[in-house]
């Protein structure tokens, strides 16, 4: 670590490293559908920054006006920090588009892939849908 380029290289490596380990810890391929994210527009009702996993609560209103309550998990805070998140990344009332690897059983829970804020800012939580290696 003797010059700026080495520092930059280190940062790049760290970012790459983190992006690849998204579902490594959970890897719950039998529980969540990692093949494609469900995409929904919703409103943040609560954002909890805590172990073992951050929890994002949001409401989705369908065309008939029926509101569904969803919860998405991310990796723990210390991993999300590496990914550029903070505990203030989301707040109640934020209008967002959520990409979530939902539970296979139909429950309104899942693992967050990414979230897009009203201003277009994108917060990535997990890698692309193809990230998890197929089970051997």
């Amino acid at each position, binding site marked *: *670590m*003797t010059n700026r380029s*080495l520092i930059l*290289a*280190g*940062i790049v*490596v*760290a*970012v*790459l*490293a*983190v*992006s*690849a*380990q998204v579902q*490594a*810890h*959970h*890897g*719950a*391929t*039998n*529980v*969540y559908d990692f093949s494609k994210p469900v995409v929904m527009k919703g409103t943040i009702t609560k954002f909890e920054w*805590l*172990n*073992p*996993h951050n*929890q994002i609560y949001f409401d989705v209103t369908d065309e008939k006006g029926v509101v569904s309550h969803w*919860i998405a*998990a991310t*990796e*723990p*805070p*210390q*991993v999300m*920090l*590496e990914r550029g998140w903070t505990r203030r990344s989301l707040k109640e009332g934020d209008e967002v588009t959520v990409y979530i690897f939902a*539970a*296979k*059983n139909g*429950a*309104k*829970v*899942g693992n967050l892939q990414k979230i897009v804020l009203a201003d277009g800012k994108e917060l990535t939580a997990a890698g692309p849908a193809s990230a*998890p*290696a197929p*089970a*051997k």
Partner: protein
Amino acid sequence: MRNRLTFLAMLSLGVATFSLVASAQAGGGAGQAPAANSKPPDLSGDWAPDGRRGGIGQSLSVSDIRGANRGKESDIPYQPWAREKTLSERTSTGPDPQFGNTTDPQVLYCEPPGVPHIYLWPIKTKFIQTPEAVYILHELGPYYRMVRLNSKHPEDPDPQWWGDSIGWYENGDTLVVDTVGFTDKTWLDQMGHPHTEKLHLTERYKRADANTLELRMVIDDPGAYTKPWNAERNFTLSKTGFLRYQQICSVRENRRFEENLAKPALPAK
């Protein structure tokens, strides 16, 4: 917890200060090499699991890092009871996570994961090198281990969560950590691989380049496995720093995660 964190902070500051003083003395021509077998490598940095090379994974098995082939890994020489025990465990992560119904003692009881299980967590690690010991600090817990240099194990060590660790340097680039005296209460990894109090763990930490730390391990437990076997982890430098966030095992927070997210997602029986 506050007292513990204060203690850790004081410990870190203390050993860091001592290390600087010792380095200055050695550099000043005192001719006194650090208490080790070769020149100590520089292990400084905040080390995070390297996602390019397996990341944290689920299993210590090099052939089955995601834990999809539990009990049938080609590189784990199980004794029959150890295989049965592994398959009887309910994991908190992996392909079939049962977070609220797991038998993983680290989640069920919030017990220390021990080593090498701690390296299956998405947490950072830091090394504080002094002439007589290396302190390995973990973001989970936060826990730390003390590796005594130029030392011997007790003849009859008390079984403990982190065992009794001694260490030495090799080739100017590797820290070798030799640990015995483990309790048998911990799992070796997230997939429930067991061990006994006969476990003899050898860890070799090598700074492969400025940004990369390699850990190569030999798991020698004649109580559970028919022969020693190899495992590995790899680390890369973190950009957010050690202990920016403490990974705490909290029964309260675990229950909240279980009720809100884990249990609703479980497949119907």
